[in-house]
């Protein structure tokens, strides 16, 4: 039990379970999943479906934060990605064609990748502080999206495009699969290759990493590019969900939620060791929280307060100082167990 509570993911998972319990108590139907036409419906399914954009952005953010960086531009990239894809599809004259939709998606994600690489260029080559470098695009990005949509909210009617956010495959919503693919791809990238290790080394100690021969420039560049790419994919899901490109509101404040998810998941903003699994839990917590607030009938305007409280509690529980206070009250820990917990790995 003791080792369990010391696991890095214990408190995030506990918080998630607590949220589910609160929801179930206040509304027993929360846990129920109904099958309709071979498709699953229910609050839990909604959470899985709706968390997809944040999941993608959060994964990218985790890697960026591990390099001691931050990417504030993800929300703006979501807007641009949607704007590019929908403008192309809307102007193509054949919105129902699979080829058109695929090209639109490719363009949206492609542009996002370029924007991410631009961020990476500013940070790793020019040496601008990440918060400033990505702030540029955070502010300019919505303007760019506005230019692309010519100040309008571009809407389309396209079956194939709608399928991305609303479709079902084998009974589960498509965005859920996209999340899974992104998580698995990222996990393979960082843990099957040596990318994760070198990335963490750069985040923990840049000077020592340089002397060890690590070319941090390339690594940092890739990470920002990856973050841009994932934000672009999130933008496609988001715009598909509303069948519209809204330059002003698409992905608004998503960077804040993503950073919160990363922190709740136990990755330090100081960089270094990161946990993709923690971020996954963090994203689910935030999404469940958003759902909870709605279920409990709290006015949406007060939602941020609830988020803040949960975030503070989870972060406090993870801080070594608070943990020490909590464990001091109980029996003193035998030495052997302590050393054991040091080994907890950061495997995703």
């Amino acid at each position, binding site marked *: 039990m003791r080792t369990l509570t010391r696991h890095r993911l214990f408190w995030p998972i506990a918080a998630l379970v607590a949220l589910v319990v609160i929801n179930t108590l206040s509304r027993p139907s929360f846990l129920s999943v109904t099958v309709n036409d071979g498709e699953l419906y229910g609050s839990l399914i909604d959470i899985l479906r709706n968390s997809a954009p944040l999941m993608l952005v959060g994964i990218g953010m985790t890697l960026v934060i591990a390099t001691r960086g931050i990417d504030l531009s993800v929300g703006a990239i979501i807007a641009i990605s949607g704007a590019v894809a929908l403008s192309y599809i809307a102007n193509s004259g054949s919105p129902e064609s699979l080829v058109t939709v695929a090209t639109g998606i490719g363009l949206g994600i492609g542009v996002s990748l370029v924007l991410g690489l631009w961020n990476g260029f500013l940070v790793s080559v020019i040496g601008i502080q990440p918060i400033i470098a990505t702030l540029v695009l955070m502010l300019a990005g919505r303007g760019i999206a506005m230019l692309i949509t010519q100040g309008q909210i571009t809407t389309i009617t396209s079956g194939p495009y709608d399928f991305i956010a609303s479709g079902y495959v084998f009974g589960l919503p498509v965005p859920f699969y996209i999340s899974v693919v992104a998580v698995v791809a990222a996990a393979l990238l960082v843990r099957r290759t*040596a990318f994760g290790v070198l990335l963490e080394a750069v985040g923990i*100690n840049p000077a*020592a990493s340089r002397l060890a021969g690590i070319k941090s420039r390339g690594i940092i560049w890739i990470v920002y590019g990856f973050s841009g790419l994932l934000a672009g994919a999130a933008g496609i899901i988001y715009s598909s969900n509303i069948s519209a490109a809204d330059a002003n509101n698409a992905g608004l404040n998503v960077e804040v939620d993503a950073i919160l998810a990363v922190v709740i998941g136990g990755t330090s903003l100081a960089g270094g060791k990161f946990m993709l699994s923690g971020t996954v839990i963090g994203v689910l917590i935030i999404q469940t929280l958003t759902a909870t607030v709605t279920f409990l009938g709290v006015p949406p305007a007060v939602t941020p307060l609830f988020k803040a409280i949960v975030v503070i509690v989870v972060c406090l529980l993870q801080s070594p100082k608070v943990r020490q206070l909590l464990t001091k009250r109980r029996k003193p820990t035998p030495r052997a167990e302590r050393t054991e917990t040091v080994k907890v790995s950061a495997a995703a």
Partner: protein
Amino acid sequence: MFADEPVVQMQGVSVDFGGVRALDSVSFRMFPGEIHSLIGENGAGKSTLIKALTGVQSISAGTIRVRGEQTAFTSPADAQRLGIQTVYQEMDLLPNLSVAENIMLGRERHGRFGINWKLMEADAERALDELGLDLDPRSALGTHSLAEQQLVAIARALAARAKILILDEPTSSLDQNEVSELFRVLHSLRESGVAVLFISHFLDQVYEVSDRLTILRDGRSVGEFLTSDILRIDVVSRMTGTRTRGLPSPLVADGGAELSAGAARPFFRAHHVGVNGAIAPFDLQVGEGEVIGIAGLLGSGRSELVRLLSGVERSDSGEIEIDEKRVRLRSPASALSQGVAYSSDNRAVEGIIGDFSIAENILLALQAERGWLRRLPKQHRDELVQSYMTALDIRPADPEALVKTLSGGNQQKVLLARWLALAPRLLVLDEPTRGIDMATKAEIQRLIAELAANGMSVIFISAEFRELVGLSDRIGVMRDGRLEVVLENDDLSEDRLLAIIAYGSQAGAGDDAESDER
């Protein structure tokens, strides 16, 4: 020349950091109207003494008297109230603010409507005048040269009515003319009765400017002398702890000597490599299996020298050849790919990845060389880690233990394992045996000898002459940014090294052949 009453008197002062005694019952005094130098090697306790005197660090034993009054500083503000002002090496000034604002910071002149700028600028101008400085008080500080900024920092201390002025390595980033200018100012301060504590690694400057000096070693005071009463060679030997008579040096029972430079084929050549204003262009050749020791005081450029050879810093001039082919060592990565590995003396900042395990730390450079796409296969990883942990006897024997929890000696071994895993041709070690226990030290010395016997070349820096003489085939001596001489180490005496460090290569020439500046 000196007033009878010391303005600062520290007696039996000790400072502990956790369990470590950084300053061990040190006595130290300063008189008004004198320039007093505090000298010692890395870790001798210079900065700790300053911290104790400026109230930054509380003392665990002893007394500090300032102008006769016993004091118990609890904060730097206490010390400043008594007229103790410090100018730090990395000047704690604000380059975006004006010269006047910097001088008067914290002591702004207030009028009825907030700050009275006219008055403040007049005050600042007066402080500048006292130093004979002709600067516009309204200009931004950052637009002036480093030397002028340094003098502004002194003006700031004077404007606060400093009676005791501490200058922590004020000359490290100044050129020759600027140093003279600084010394002129220090002399005029001495005239006005200020006690100046001057800290520098440059012996020449210490001798040029100071009246009195105190030598620290290993947290203890080794003595206080009038500068005119003590020879440089005695200062150096007291700093380094070398007794002036040579010690037997049986560090390496066998090996080393047979594989001397003459037999070795030089594969690494540096021609006129240097950095403007820091490292004078030098030539150095390294033979296969050769061990070259680098001697020199801290601040002599010994670290900079080896960092130029291993791609950590870039040179302004000269070229490096490996196997008769010109190579450009643009970065540590490019040097590593040419078989040159560098291990820093600053283990915490430039060595270990603290949150990584022993295994990850050992494999880091090898993995970096392969690139991230080609991860070392797990079996290969485990074998490598296991073999190095056994060969170097790294404790704890758990490859998953976090490196930050290891002792200094074991961290050093992990780093050595990291470089050895690359099988470099030239291993450059910056003070590999500093700050580690005796047993590990001996192991590392033995390892260096073994590696060389197996054909790896080693360049290492050491502050210990015994170690240099015991391990090296040749010894290079750095002095004031110059590689003075590279000597064959056949019966080279520690005295001889001492003399060169203190006086330059001309000193005592003749008893040893200065064979090598090939």
